[in-house]
């Protein structure tokens, strides 16, 4: 189980990092949404740090590679969709390795990421807004 949760933690670190530059290129309600998304990923990170043994918690890297430079609003929305899809994939992968309250946590995390990806697609006017199997990688 530790392997899947460590992978989820790495994805959460990367998501928190990405929302910094994303938020800078957004304004108004979109910026508020980006801050809320970042806060949600911080909550997920904190829960993972608590769930993992202190010795198994890798530290966050100083920087993470973004799929493209966040130069404007359009790029910020694209990167935000990608961040949520990536995080959804690691949480989906964690489901078979969990039981009880931890599975509930992983499912809520997967669902939260999938719903935020849908919101960002709507902001970016990407269709379809939804994917058939959130978190499933081809």
């Amino acid at each position: 189980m530790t392997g899947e949760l460590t992978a989820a933690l790495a994805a959460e670190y990367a998501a928190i990092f990405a929302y910094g530059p994303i938020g800078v290129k957004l304004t108004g309600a979109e910026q508020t949404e980006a801050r809320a998304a970042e806060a949600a990923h911080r909550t997920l990170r904190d829960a993972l740090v608590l769930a993992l043994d202190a010795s198994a918690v890798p530290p966050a890297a100083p920087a993470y590679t973004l799929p493209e430079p966040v130069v404007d609003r359009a790029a910020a929305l694209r990167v935000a969709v990608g961040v949520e899809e990536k995080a959804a994939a690691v949480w989906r992968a964690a489901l078979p390795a969990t039981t009880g309250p931890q599975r509930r946590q992983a499912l809520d995390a997967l669902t939260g990421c999938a719903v935020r990806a849908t919101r960002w697609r709507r902001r970016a006017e990407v269709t379809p807004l939804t994917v058939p199997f959130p978190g499933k990688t081809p």
Partner: protein
Amino acid sequence: MVLTDLVRDGDEKDKDHHRVRRRAVLALGASLAMGSVAGCGLLDRDPDPPPAPDALLPLADQAVTLAGLYGLAAADFPDRAATLTPIAEAHAAHAQELARIMATPAPSPSAAAGTAADGIEARVETLRTAEKAAYDAAVAACLAAPDHRAALVGSIAAARATHLEALK
């Protein structure tokens, strides 16, 4: 010469041996065939009870029903089809994937409730109510699922949540 005869004798013995074995195999096959007829229940007086329905059957039922509801709504309200059609397709894909892994037969499509007279708002409300119930069921099913089913059922639960978001 003697050696050749010995070899030939050996060959013929092998042939005899094969013939005997072939008859034995045929006899075994016939008895297996009889056994399988009996297993079909034709000769059984006390057939086994049918297996319990798969735990995922309600989810598959919902997916089939929702695929129909969204499909009808997309046909009745073409200006919303860009949102509704992919959701109908997602539910159909869920039904197909669930049918693939279930031990018992998949549900057959049932006629969706005829609500064509309703306006778009009422129809979306109907979809939202059905989707919310289906989401709750999928969450419960994911939490109860064995490990090898958790990812698929979890994805279906998350997908249903995104459908509620897309309906907003």
